[in-house]
């Protein structure tokens, strides 16, 4: 079965799925936090679009509801919450200096190939027209994981985590025509609660180490931190006068 034998609507699903994979790469290599959140919103919107078109092409009406839920949650609500969060953390202009961006991208390409190799036996079963998307969704999950490994900034890591969830959702839609509604609602609320908890954690982390660079959580002693402050790149603009910054951050957290 090759592409040209599929109806046009099903080809459209494949195009949208490929675009989801592309947004994963954009997310991985986007150094500006605000742009990364926009990329994440696009990914959520595209995942919702994939679900809608799968519903239209496969005639499964219950998928419309999960598409709507995904769009509301992943493309609107969570990006909006993240936006508000980084505005309150004053990280709008924050640009993370990525180490070896080209290398990280190439590793992600390797992950795509690996996930294709992994699902090859499943693809050969010829279950449904969406079977080809399983490899894409696995790749999105792995790239989200990879993003959490290579990024040091806490907000960027949360974006990686959320995009993993997008990949899982896509896998559910493409492999089994969607999960039961109860499960879907449960997952949606889990993600929402996770988002709220992350918000609280951001403030906690910044209060204790005055930065959202999670690599600094590894250092235990005060002296090590002071050494690092002079040498290393830091996250908050007010890092230069830590004594003045601390009360301000606390006031903001409340």
């Amino acid at each position: 079965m090759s592409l040209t034998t599929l109806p046009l609507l099903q080809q459209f699903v494949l195009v949208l799925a490929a675009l989801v994979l592309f947004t994963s790469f954009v997310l991985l290599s986007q150094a500006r936090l605000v742009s990364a959140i926009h990329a994440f919103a696009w990914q959520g919107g595209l995942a919702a679009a994939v679900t809608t078109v799968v519903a239209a092409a496969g005639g499964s009406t219950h998928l419309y509801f999960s598409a709507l839920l995904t769009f509301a949650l992943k493309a609107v609500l969570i990006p909006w919450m993240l936006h508000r969060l980084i505005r309150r953390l004053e990280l709008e202009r924050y640009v993370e200096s990525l180490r070896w961006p080209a290398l990280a991208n190439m590793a992600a390409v390797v992950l795509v190939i690996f996930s294709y190799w992994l699902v090859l036996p499943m693809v050969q079963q010829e279950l449904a027209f969406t079977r080809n998307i399983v490899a894409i969704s696995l790749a999105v999950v792995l790239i989200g994981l990879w993003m959490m490994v290579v990024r040091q900034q806490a907000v960027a890591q949360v974006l990686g985590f959320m995009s993993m969830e997008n990949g899982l959702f896509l896998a559910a839609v493409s492999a089994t025509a969607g999960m039961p509604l109860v499960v879907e609602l449960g997952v949606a609320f889990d993600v929402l609660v996770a988002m709220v908890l992350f918000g609280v954690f951001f403030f906690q982390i910044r209060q204790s180490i005055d930065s959202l660079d999670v690599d600094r959580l590894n250092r235990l002693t005060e002296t090590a931190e002071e050494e690092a402050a002079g040498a290393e790149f830091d996250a908050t603009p007010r890092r230069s006068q830590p004594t003045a910054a601390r009360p301000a951050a606390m006031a903001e957290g409340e």
Partner: protein
Amino acid sequence: MDHLVSASSAAALFQALLYLAAAPLLVGWIRKVKARLQNRRGPALLQPYRDLRKLLAKEVRVAHTASPLFSAAPYIVFVATWMAAATVPLVAVNLPTAAVADIIVLVGLLALARFFLALAGMDVGTAFGGMGASREMLVSSLAEPAMLMAVFTLAMTAHSTNLASVIDFQLSSDFALRPSFLFALGGLILVALAETGRIPVDNPATHLELTMIHEAMLLEYSGRHLALMEWAAQIKLVLYGALIANIFFPWGIAQSFAPAALGLGIAAIAAKLLLLGAALAVGESVLAKMRLFRAPAFLNLALLLALLGLLSHVILEVGA
């Protein structure tokens, strides 16, 4: 049979001459659209022709430190670019030129032209020439793999590296939404912008020392030599435009050598190039030029798009 061969050769010759004739017009059109977008009236559409005529009539001045290579380079660059253009179907497919050269030859001819351009830039020994040459090489060394990768994506779908076969395949198969073509198109557009020295990478309208790439290599040229170099750059722009327009949107191209089909082919490619030129002018008006050190990131994106095209072809389109 003889009559058929002569007809196709005549069409090939006509097409090659059309490249020469149309190249300045496309540049004039892009400048005109850009000027209108900036609320200026802009120079006349035919201004690039007048510039070329003026330069061709002028005396050639050669620096006293220049070697013979400096005088030979404009001819080599011009002929190599023109030959490369002749292999890209413009108004008709199945030309004899397509049978002798495929996409890899095309990339090779462009690389030959670039090699001599860079050598000529360094030949006189001025600082700007050397700087421009080194920058050109930086950009092209990153753009070339991306272009080859994008082209291989097409070749894998059409099972041929020959441009005419790729276009024939596109025309004969039913319309299909191919994710791989989408990515290849994106990658090829980025490569074309970098290779033809358009705005996010290079600015064709500037002679500012710190930013110029292509112009820096031409600083020492004058008269006939300069005319040939600029004409070659204009042909290269049409070449990339025709490549993008005819591979991805081949509809309207002539498949026979009947006058009606050729006429339709000319009208179709003219419309496509005018649209592409207008899109380029709009893009150049809204984008700012990047710092040179961000050019590698830009071209990495092109390479990534081309790679994704290749992968999505394997994963999504071939199936088990």
